[in-house]
């Protein structure tokens, strides 16, 4: 019994700590910190973009809003494909914007294009 309580307490603490250090807004993800970022959180969305891509810039504010709406649930990162070549190569990205979705460090879904916010929300909710 005590052990069970201890376990619950430990879990609560972990959750609390997680939410306390949950990032504000989307985080910059690079080839270097990509694996660390994706493995640190349960559900992760990575927005692959570049400054010369108009639809990417169109998607930007939506990603910002989602980072707020899903704070504590989905970690959202932005990866500039102009500066980071390894991740796009690994996931065979040939079009931007592309959003990569991860659950428990596993790549589970990919979405291409500046999709409406509702569509992205739907995907995220289905992963939670």
């Amino acid at each position, binding site marked *: 019994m005590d052990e069970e309580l201890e376990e619950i307490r430990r879990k609560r603490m972990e959750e609390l700590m997680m939410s306390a250090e949950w990032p504000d807004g989307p985080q910059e993800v690079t080839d270097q910190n990509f694996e660390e970022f994706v493995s640190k959180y349960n559900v992760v969305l990575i927005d692959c973009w570049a400054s*010369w891509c108009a*639809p990417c810039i169109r998607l930007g504010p939506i990603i910002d809003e989602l980072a707020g709406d899903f704070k504590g649930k989905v970690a959202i990162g932005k990866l500039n494909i102009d500066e980071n070549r390894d991740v796009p190569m690994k996931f*065979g990205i*040939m079009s931007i914007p592309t959003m990569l979705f991860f659950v428990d460090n596993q790549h589970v879904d990919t979405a291409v294009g500046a999709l409406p916010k509702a569509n992205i929300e739907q995907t995220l909710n289905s992963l939670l």
Partner: protein
Amino acid sequence: MEVLDVAIIGGGPAGLTAGIYASRSGLKILMFEKGISGGAANTAPWVENYPGFEAIEGMKLMDMIGAQARKYVEVKAGESIESLANDGNEFIIKTSKGEYRARAIIYATGSVHRRLGVPGEGSLLGRGVSYCATCDGFFFREKKVAIVGGGNNAATEAIYLKKLGIDVTIIHRRDALRAEESLQNTIASMGINVIYDSVVEEIFGEKKLEKLKLKNVKTSDISEIEFDGVFISIGDIPQIELAKELGVGINDDGYIDVDRTQRSSIPMVYAAGDVTGGFRQIITACSEGAIAANSAHEDLAKPYWI
């Protein structure tokens, strides 16, 4: 609730220019743009036919026009108009974020890319199929791509891709390109291949695009050619759903019907730019936006139908 004089739908060249003119004439306006301002012109690799600029990147030109417009107009970016109605007095505008009222509406909603509608197009989107050379050309450097289309946009995109160091082939369904002669000359001098009289029938690929199936429309011959990517640039579809909600007249070609003053079939409703068809360019979109704003200003001061 404060009633606007004019609500402008769309922040491309037409909407932005309408905003500049309407606001400078003293009208109280707001502009709604579901994405970022600039519209389709944001994806033009460069623009060489907008007077005052010998050559300028589409995104840069639109940033400049956007900055100028913002001196006068509040642009509600990221706010899309979801529905429109008329209660007999005013237009009621429901957006993704709220509700507004306006005495006049200017449609400047532009268009979206037309799809080929062939097998493989949807499933290989983002894995070789693209509608935006400036977005995705980067991924195909030193590879081989096809451009489907024969107009100015297709030609400009082909030249842009070739300059990135890509092996480019244009696939066009007619026996001559429609693009203007200066672009055709560039295409010839750069050694861009053109396959005439041919349409894409299917796009093949397992994990990514591998080849295209082409049909010669004159001989009916079928061929399969290997490519790494295909850029589809076969024109656009006007965004008229919102106009239909108000019952605005649509012409046989599917564009909003307007007269030379950009007035639509409904009083106090105007349209400008690509959504009205005709010669679809930045300069004409700007021009029509200016005219639409002027007509709205005239009608708000003195309705022509009374």
